[in-house]
């Protein structure tokens, strides 16, 4: 057996163990099982990464044959190549840190073993998703993470609102998944296989813009829209914040929601040849980046701000993928995993320290009570805002530079979204950690089992950008050369160095300005955000998220309910009534026919004679 099969297998074992006998084991053992399994997976992932970067060829590991029918053969097999290796490092590495953090965050919960079991199950499915060697295994992971997301959003299942959020997440994802399924069927029809190698090799030989390729790319992208919470299927992600915060960090920020980006990068051969579909990816990504960033400006729940921020940052990744800058998309995916996991866990630490308070209007001045959380959160905020030389700066700059060489409009929109990012993040930062404390709960710092992962993630969010340093720094772009074998045609980087220097300089100036302006507003003037109900004008539209939930309710939910009622009425009172009428008609007809037999022989003879005459006439006519 290939040792790398253990990477997904160990979390699965952890799930099986904690899920069955977890409640009967001491909490410490539960923690060891779930974190330990991930740590070993991470170590194996590092080993794989080192081997691949030392120049070893990608390998396919066959586990067993899963589904076959006619010419369709689907094996449960895994692909160990640079792209999956990068994803493995993120999933197991960041996943491990979040698992450790969960020990502190969830230990007091009565269902702690169940929580850790679900988390391990999630990691298993996520690994299936990124390691699969064909689209169906990817889809198995894809739906599996959706299930875990459902289970974990609704982890506290006493609460009806949480259950509703969980169900909404699953259903919205399923809408996307139908697209993914149809995309797979089209792939199968076109290429007779669903294995990456066969599909991509045949796709490479097809002419650019072939309708089948465009169709495949668009259908798969529908799946990505659902999973990665892009417009118009983004509304589940903010609601998903109902789950415990480590869940939000792991599933709804660092890993699962980036699956759509991974899928597009994995299928980059197809997207490169399907120009219209790539443009759709770009457009939807851009629209989402802007829309979500504006909504984040007016949210008062610390996790909701981060949720919209995630949607917006995912938009950035899709923009990169849509422009053909696949490496940039993966780069941002990685740095985003670092800083967004950090921010969510920091938010979790704040919530933990305030006994469950999530409203930033009830916070303020927390830097004195939570020094470590504050310092690490600041690193995350600076990183996402794009302050050089933190990780977010490099990855976002690469996308911006790509945007410039692609189209000025794209660049302008991305730059604007970047500024908005800094604005909502610093608004959040100042309101949470500075000024006077506005709440009434006793604020306290979290235990070191929680702050230690924060410190590690802060380090990664600070220096992680050097895996893809831009050429003007005369450092190697490690990620680009590593991913070279997977990405068919890396987009040419045609921006001059002087432009990049100018971009870096201007962004620093703008960011510093944003930092001071937001500080002036929220610390010096100590402006406190309004209740959503008090907002007026644009603020009201933003705080109500452009009324999209309401729109969906009246455009989809209500009509569907109407249709279902209509069908139910039709079934009972029309279709069934017709069926019931048939025996009634027969009975009444036979009732009348019975009257003919009244025993008068004369009538019978007459009838017989009439019949004979009738038959005679008929036979003569024919």
């Amino acid at each position, binding site marked *: 057996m290939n040792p790398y099969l253990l990477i997904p297998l160990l979390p699965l074992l952890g799930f099986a163990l904690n899920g069955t006998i977890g409640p009967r084991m001491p909490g410490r053992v539960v923690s060891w099982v779930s974190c330990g399994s991930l740590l070993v997976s991470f170590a194996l992932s590092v080993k794989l990464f080192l081997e691949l970067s030392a120049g070893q060829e990608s390998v396919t590991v066959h586990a067993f044959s899963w589904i076959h029918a*006619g010419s369709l053969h689907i094996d449960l097999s895994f692909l160990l190549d640079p792209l999956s290796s990068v994803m493995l490092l993120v999933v197991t590495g960041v996943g491990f840190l979040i698992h450790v953090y969960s020990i502190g965050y969830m230990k007091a919960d009565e269902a702690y073993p169940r929580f850790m079991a679900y988390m391990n199950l999630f990691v298993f499915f996520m690994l299936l998703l990124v390691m699969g060697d064909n689209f169906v295994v990817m889809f198995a992971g894809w739906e*599996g993470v959706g299930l875990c997301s459902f289970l974990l959003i609704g982890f506290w299942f006493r609460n009806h609102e949480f259950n509703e959020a969980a169900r909404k997440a699953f259903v919205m994802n399923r809408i996307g998944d139908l697209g993914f399924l149809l995309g797979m069927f089209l792939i199968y029809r076109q290429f007779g296989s669903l294995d990456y190698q066969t599909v991509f090799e045949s796709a490479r030989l097809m002419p650019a813009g072939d309708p089948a390729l465009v169709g495949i790319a668009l259908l798969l992208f529908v799946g990505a829209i659902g999973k990665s919470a892009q417009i118009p299927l983004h509304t589940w992600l903010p609601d998903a914040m109902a789950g415990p915060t480590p869940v939000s960090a792991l599933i709804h920020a660092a890993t699962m929601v980036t699956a759509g980006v991974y899928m597009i990068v994995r299928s980059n051969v197809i997207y490169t040849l399907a120009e219209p579909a790539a443009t759709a990816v770009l457009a939807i990504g851009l629209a989402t980046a802007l829309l979500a960033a504006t909504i984040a400006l007016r949210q008062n729940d610390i996790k909701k701000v981060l949720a919209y921020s995630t949607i917006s940052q995912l938009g950035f990744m899709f923009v990169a993928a849509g422009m053909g800058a696949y490496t940039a998309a993966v780069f941002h995916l990685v740095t985003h995993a670092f800083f967004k996991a950090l921010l969510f866990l920091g938010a979790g630490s704040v919530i933990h320290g305030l006994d469950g308070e999530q409203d930033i209007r009830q916070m303020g001045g927390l830097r004195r009570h939570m020094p470590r959380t504050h310092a690490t959160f600041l690193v995350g905020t600076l990183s996402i805002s794009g302050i050089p030389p933190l990780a977010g700066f490099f990855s976002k700059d690469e996308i911006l530079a790509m945007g410039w060489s692609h189209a000025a409009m794209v660049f302008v929109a991305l730059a604007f979204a970047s500024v908005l990012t800094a604005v909502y993040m610093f608004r959040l930062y100042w309101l949470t950690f500075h000024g006077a404390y506005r709440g009434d709960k006793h604020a306290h710092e979290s235990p070191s089992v929680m702050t230690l992962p924060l410190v590690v993630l802060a380090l990664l969010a600070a220096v992680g950008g050097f895996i893809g340093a831009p050429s003007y720094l005369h450092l190697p772009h490690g990620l680009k050369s590593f991913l070279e074998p997977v990405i068919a045609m890396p987009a040419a980087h045609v921006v001059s160095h002087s432009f990049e220097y100018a971009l870096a300089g201007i962004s620093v100036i703008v960011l510093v300005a944003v930092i001071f302006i937001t500080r002036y507003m929220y610390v010096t003037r100590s402006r406190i955000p309004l209740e959503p109900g008090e907002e007026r004008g644009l603020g009201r539209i933003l705080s109500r998220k452009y009324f999209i939930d309401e729109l969906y309710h009246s455009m989809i939910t209500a009509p569907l309910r109407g249709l279902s009622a209509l069908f139910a009425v039709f079934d009972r009172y029309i279709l069934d009534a017709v069926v019931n009428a048939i025996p009634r008609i027969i009975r009444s007809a036979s009732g009348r026919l019975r009257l003919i037999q009244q025993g008068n022989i004369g009538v019978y003879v007459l009838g017989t004679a009439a019949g004979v005459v009738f038959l005679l006439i008929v036979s003569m006519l024919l």
Partner: protein
Amino acid sequence: MSLDLIYLLGFQLLASAACLVSSNARVRFTAMVLSAVSFLFSAHMFFEIRQNGAVQFLVDVPWISSLGVHFKVGMDGISFILVQLTNLLVPLIILSSFNRDITRPKAFYSLILFMQFALNGVFTAQDGFLFYIFWELALIPIWFICLVWGGEDSPRITLKFFIYTLTGSLCMLFALIFLYLQTPAPHTFDLDAFYALELEPGRQALVFWMLLAGFAVKIPLFPLHTWQPDTYTDAPTPGTMLLSGIMLKMGIYGLIRWLIPVVPAALDEWGHLAMMGAVAGIVYASCIALMQADFKRLIAYSSIAHVGLISAGILTRTPEGLQGGVVQMVAHGINAIGLFFIADMLMHRMRTREMAKLGGLAHREKIFSVCFMIVLLGSIALPLTNGFVGEFLLLNGIFQYGPWTALFAGTTVILGAVYMLRAYKAIMLGEDREANNDFTPLHLNEKALLVIVAALVLITGIWPSCITSVTEPAISNLLMLSKG
């Protein structure tokens, strides 16, 4: 010549009679043991079946020679899997009834075992007349089970069910006799002779519609389904399980075995109409399932959607569609038993199946909530459960037939998740309630049944080749016949 099938059928007939002479107190165990023996006996044939697509375990003796009727039974891979399914599910169905008060238990269990005999006959008959006999024999026990052990309204509901399905059967009989008369003299009902007929299109169309009427009522396909929700809801749980778990597969099996290879030209011409009905039924029944208040009724409607999908996949006459159809028949059988059993447990303990009156049961029995979740996931086709393999293949086959049809049929992916998760939420989640004290701890047989069903959901989802490797050659044979 292997006489295994004769032993099996004979044993099942005797088993049914044995229940009548058993005692009231012991009959459930007798039935359980006898059906388990049936299961083990048919399971041992797994070692004997050869994967070459031929009809095996063949027994062919003249029966009514003046009419050319033979007692001819045998199994290819498809029949084999359905026989296995029947003999696997019947012990589970009997197990499900262990802690329920059943009046006249001897008759009850005898009828169940008789039903098992008839179903095995339907799935193995290789002679049209014999097929018809078994087909009707299967109707009698289930009709009595629904009538005598059903709910208050059972006389009206079972009459409707009876008339519906008898009308369908008569259409089928008409078609079989018509086919018989087309065979070269001396006429025969032999299935192979039917396959060898190359009827002119007009006659094929007649046979097609007549057979379809018979099968569509049984399955049931939209718009001939209106007997189903009432019958499923009103029947006693073992009856519902027999109906949905196994009996409806008679109709689908009929499509595969007696319709597709016999009238290929009519399918080319008229198949799309049947397809439209099947696909419309998916959307239609899913929509109605969305607003059901009673959990058992919800499963009944979702069943219409599922069998619509199976039939649509089979009517595509693609290897994926047919293979998906067989896999999904097995999956649907297992999941339906699980879900109807859960509905029965709710009714038995909480005295209601109305979802609005339930809630918070996840706080009670862990094994119940976990197994319910697993079966539910199977029914909404999550990968690595049995439902996914079938649904994936079926939709794939439908997509090769027509992408837009697949889009319509695919809405079940979304709607299924909507109504099933809604049901789970309403029944299981939320605050614990005082009324939930009625949810007494599970009996051993209940635990066993739930665990077996959940395990089957996962096993057949991860290792579907245990089914597909047996059916593969049989399906390619059938497809060759149907393509001429």
